[in-house]
């Protein structure tokens, strides 16, 4: 299928427009994953290690939000950032920043829910020791997060995977603007609508290769880290 390789060919020959699209996709999804991790990991650990009223419904809600449809996340962020919305004065609609915000909303619950489960399982294992050592809750959380760091990488990758795969949220808040907010997935949607199916499938292959490469890197880093940790 030589036709299907056209996007690959563009990438290999360093077509600047395509490189920009790949770069923006990675920039948006990696930024969103980073922000979501900064929110989700501490939140998940906190929920795992504390007991408060409404904790169980909160866990159910968090788990349910893992299935938040991207188009709903996109619509909510759109309504907030629209000039007629509460945050309209920021002027962020149809920018890469709006896309990062939307994907953060989408990914944070995934990372929080998976972190909560991981940390809670670990807590069951170490509860007696940590209780006996009389460690304060915040120190407990830090100790357990440090201990679970390799498992948490999987939570981050799940969040990153969700971000790179979705098109529903970013096409609403980004607007798929050529050379500004066009990513791999929105470009695929556009080329499909133009009937340029070979180019669309080629872009799909490029996207999957990029995601595979990121995952391979993460796996390599995890292996190296484990070896160092002995």
């Amino acid at each position, binding site marked *: 299928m030589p036709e299907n390789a056209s996007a690959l060919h563009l990438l290999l020959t360093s077509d600047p427009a395509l490189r920009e699209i790949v770069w923006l996709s990675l920039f948006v999804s990696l930024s969103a994953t980073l*922000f979501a991790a*900064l929110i989700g990991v501490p939140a998940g650990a906190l929920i795992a290690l504390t007991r408060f009223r409404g904790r169980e419904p909160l866990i159910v809600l968090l788990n349910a939000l893992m299935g938040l449809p991207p188009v709903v996340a996109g619509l909510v962020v759109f309504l907030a950032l*629209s000039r007629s919305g509460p945050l309209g004065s920021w002027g962020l609609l149809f920018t*890469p920043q709006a896309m990062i915000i939307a994907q953060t909303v989408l990914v944070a619950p995934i990372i929080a829910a998976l972190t909560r489960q991981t940390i809670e399982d670990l807590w069951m294992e170490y509860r007696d020791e940590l209780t006996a050592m009389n460690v304060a809750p915040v120190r407990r959380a830090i100790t357990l997060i440090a201990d679970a760091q390799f498992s948490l990488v999987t939570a981050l990758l799940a969040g990153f995977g969700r971000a790179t795969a979705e098109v529903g949220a970013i096409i609403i808040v980004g607007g798929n603007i*050529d050379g500004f907010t066009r990513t791999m997935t929105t470009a695929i949607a556009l080329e499909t*609508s133009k*009937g340029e199916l070979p180019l669309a499938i080629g872009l799909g292959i490029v996207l999957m290769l990029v995601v595979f490469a990121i995952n391979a890197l993460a796996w390599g880093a995890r292996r190296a880290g484990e070896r160092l940790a002995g």
Partner: protein
Amino acid sequence: MRTAHALAAAVILFAAATAGAPPDRSIVLASTTSTQDSGLFDYLLPIVKQHTGITVRVVAQGTGQALETARRGDCDVVLVHARSEELKFVAEGGSLRRYPVMDNDFVLIGQKSDPAAIGGMNDAARAFRSIRDKKVLFISRGDRSGTNLAELSLWKAAGIDIAKDKGAWYESIGQGMGAALNMASARGAYVLSDRATWANFRNKADLRILVEGDKRMFNQYGVMLVNPVKHPNVKKALGQAFIEFLISPEGQQAIANYRIDGRQVFYPDANAPGA
């Protein structure tokens, strides 16, 4: 500690991304899928940039959605193709003035085999009646786009109340022109398209133009600056400069020069009376 570092890094990253290029000479244009899918903007916007220095960021939506984007103040300029909706938009104060820009026409597309036997007709209303009578699959955009509104008025011209008369043969898909053409191609259906998107569509398979040339299939595009009094964030000077270029002799000539497979698909008409 590490978290603090990561947080600081993230904030810097976000700030850097937000800062953007210093003097911002860009506007946001809400426009229709037809102007994007036809390739017109890929050709025209670099010319606009060269003449005016303005970077035009296009959000391609259906006409109904593009006007909604304008109503919310989320774009500076709106370029669409549904004259009555545009006049309504001006009347309600969404814009101070509508400028006609260009036109082309709609074409009725279907399979080579043509089960409703409409090929070669130049009366769109008769063709629509034949499709309804033979109950052959028809794909409707169903998204309040300019093309969708034109289709609805053609059903009306055919004396058919489509809201009441539609059956399983009439599918409203709520998607853009390209998606509708892909579906018609995959399922052997009839579909109404603007000529430019059709000309630039690359998955034609057995589809072809069956009906064209009816005066009622005329397709007029208009451009409007979003009312800066209602929405102070609108980039008034840049938006107006963009419009002035489109309707200037150079802009009109540039539109006329656009070709798909050697054929002109947009006809400038900024100075045509009543456009």
